[in-house]
């Protein structure tokens, strides 16, 4: 029951502070000038006009601005009391031709955003996203790519989870409900992508929007707190900021979205597509 409620809320778990909030769209201000020697009636009317202008600017403008942002963003801000809709299927497209092998800005951004960090113990440290180097055994050629939870439509981790803590939202984002994860690690056994990490030791300084806990399993959330607020995942933002723009986030179900257009136009690849998990992460120029 808890899992279902969480799914509807779109959060990582009941009562979690990861429920998303729409960011303030900015603060509008109104300026006034006093006109000396004016008719008393005119003063009243001017006062009314000024007050009405100030009111409308303060109250309406943020909403208009927010709507304008929402139209320009790939994700649409979802009110916290509305359930996630299966009309959307959020996904990522990563163009490897634009992804330099030496760059790991997406990894750093994810770490900063979600509060996980490497402690020099690669075997037990959590990694939500990593740069993977792939080398052809025959000719030695290699390339690198960011690897994270592939947000499968038929996720093996969700199938095997005994309590339903691993769940897929209606919009395709695969999450772990930290409140009912018992730490059995069966999802880690089932994941074909080694995308999940188990928290092996006590944690400190967690981010309020990305609660984590010793003894639970975790993975990339596609920055669900940002997505629900109409934003994009931190990795995508960092990639664009670094000038690569190799990562695109968007709604695969929306034919007008850039990601859907790119997937429809160019040859893309999904990792271990042969397993039939229908991943939500596409790679271009792989």
């Amino acid at each position, binding site marked *: 029951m808890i899992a279902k409620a969480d799914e509807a809320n779109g959060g990582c778990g009941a009562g979690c502070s990861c429920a998303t909030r729409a960011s303030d769209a900015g603060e509008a201000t109104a300026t006034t000038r006093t006109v000396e020697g004016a008719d008393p009636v005119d003063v009243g009317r001017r006062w009314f006009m000024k007050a009405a202008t100030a009111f409308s600017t303060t109250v309406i403008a943020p909403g208009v601005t927010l709507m304008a942002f929402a139209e320009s963003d790939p994700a649409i801000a979802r009110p916290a009391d509305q359930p996630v809709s299966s009309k959307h299927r959020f996904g990522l497209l990563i163009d490897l031709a634009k992804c330099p092998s030496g760059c790991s800005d997406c990894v750093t951004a994810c770490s900063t955003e979600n509060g996980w960090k490497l402690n020099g113990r690669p075997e037990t440290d959590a990694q939500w996203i990593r740069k993977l180097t792939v080398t052809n055994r025959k000719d030695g050629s290699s390339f690198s790519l960011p690897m994270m939870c592939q947000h499968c439509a038929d996720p093996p981790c969700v199938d095997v989870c005994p309590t339903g803590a691993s769940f897929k939202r209606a919009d395709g984002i695969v999450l772990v409900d930290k409140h009912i994860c018992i730490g*059995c690690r069966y999802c880690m056994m089932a994941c074909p992508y080694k995308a999940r990490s*188990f928290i092996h030791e*006590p944690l400190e300084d967690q981010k309020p929007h990305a609660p984590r806990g*010793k003894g639970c399993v975790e993975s990339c959330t596609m920055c669900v707190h940002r997505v629900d607020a109409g934003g994009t995942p931190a990795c995508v933002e960092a990639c664009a900021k670094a000038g690569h723009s190799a990562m695109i986030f968007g709604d695969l179900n929306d034919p007008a979205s850039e990601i859907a257009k790119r997937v429809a136009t160019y040859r893309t690849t999904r990792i271990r597509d042969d397993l039939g998990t229908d991943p939500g992460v596409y790679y271009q120029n792989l």
Partner: protein
Amino acid sequence: MARITFQRLEDHSTLFWGLLGLHALIVALGLGAAYYMEHHGHVVTGMNNAVVWGMPHVFAVFLIVSASGALNVASISSVFNKLAYKPFARLSGILAIALLVGGLIVLVLDLGRPDRLTVAMTTYNFKSIFAWNIYLYIGFIAIVGVYLFTMMDRGVSQTPTATRTVGWLAFGWRLALTTGTGSIFGFLVAREAFDSAIMAPLFIAASFLYGLAFTVLVLFTMCRETRQMLMGEEMIQSFRGLMIVFSFALLYFTAVKHLTSLYASEHHGVEAFILRDGGIYTALFWIGHVLVGNILPIAILAFGSGEARPFSERQAMTIASVLALMGGLAFMYVTIIGGQAYPLNLFPGMETSSSFLDGEVARYAPSLPEVMLGVAGISIAMLVVGIAIKVLPFLPRGESVTA
């Protein structure tokens, strides 16, 4: 055969109290180890993000598999109507419950959040084979409990149909349980070492052997304790024959699993790892599982006992049982940990590397707390049996068996 009578264990030797004390000590150490692991997190174990199931799972799965096999003797007496096995049916039932309880406690204490046991018991995802297994385990304990009641209650035991009906149910349930346990691995599509339907029958064959080995060892210990011949020579011969057959069955399914895998080019890598290049895993497979766990027991049982042979029948059975159980632990280690150590194949035909150790054979060194917790599972089972046979008449009287 004379009427079978049963007894409680009343006179206790120093050995009995010594064994009970030793098991209690091991259980205490195991619980301490579990607390230590939960307090500090799994970072103090050898487990990591690649080998997520370690020694506790090796012991837990070994015990759970053995539990269903321990019911063999009861099933043979009720389901297949072999009266010679009937004196041992009660012990077989309580041993099955005890081994399962021992395995489950280890499994629960190795969870990342064992405090959420109530969540595991109340919140289910019915597509998960793990969730099915929770029902299979609880159902097994309940059904075998009723089975024991039908065998031991003065009134109900007079109605053979009741025992037989519940016996059939228990037999079917134990097959389902081991199928479920094997399928925990068999359903893992992305793990090359596991992804196979044969994991279920392989585990069933293993359960027959390990369950019988546990039964034989407990019976021999009780013979010593009661100073009675609880098993006649004929019975020992039957157990001997069964153990040889079960061991061959396990070898057969092992061979089919690996031969099938070897036939497919895509699995050559994982097979080479387990059978040839895997270091400790290869050694445990050939020396532990195949040689110590099966070939040697078969050889000792077939050729090692009798006149002008090195061992008596009882000695041969004891040694073969101990070897089979040691081989069983090796089999579980290779299957569970070896299967995880082999890297996931994200890009077939390519090599991968990363800071997350992709493409590398995972390192795993069991830590002392893990081993302590695992061994405690066996001790919990033995404590349950030890207390049960003292409280209720699970053991046959020697004279009624051999008369």
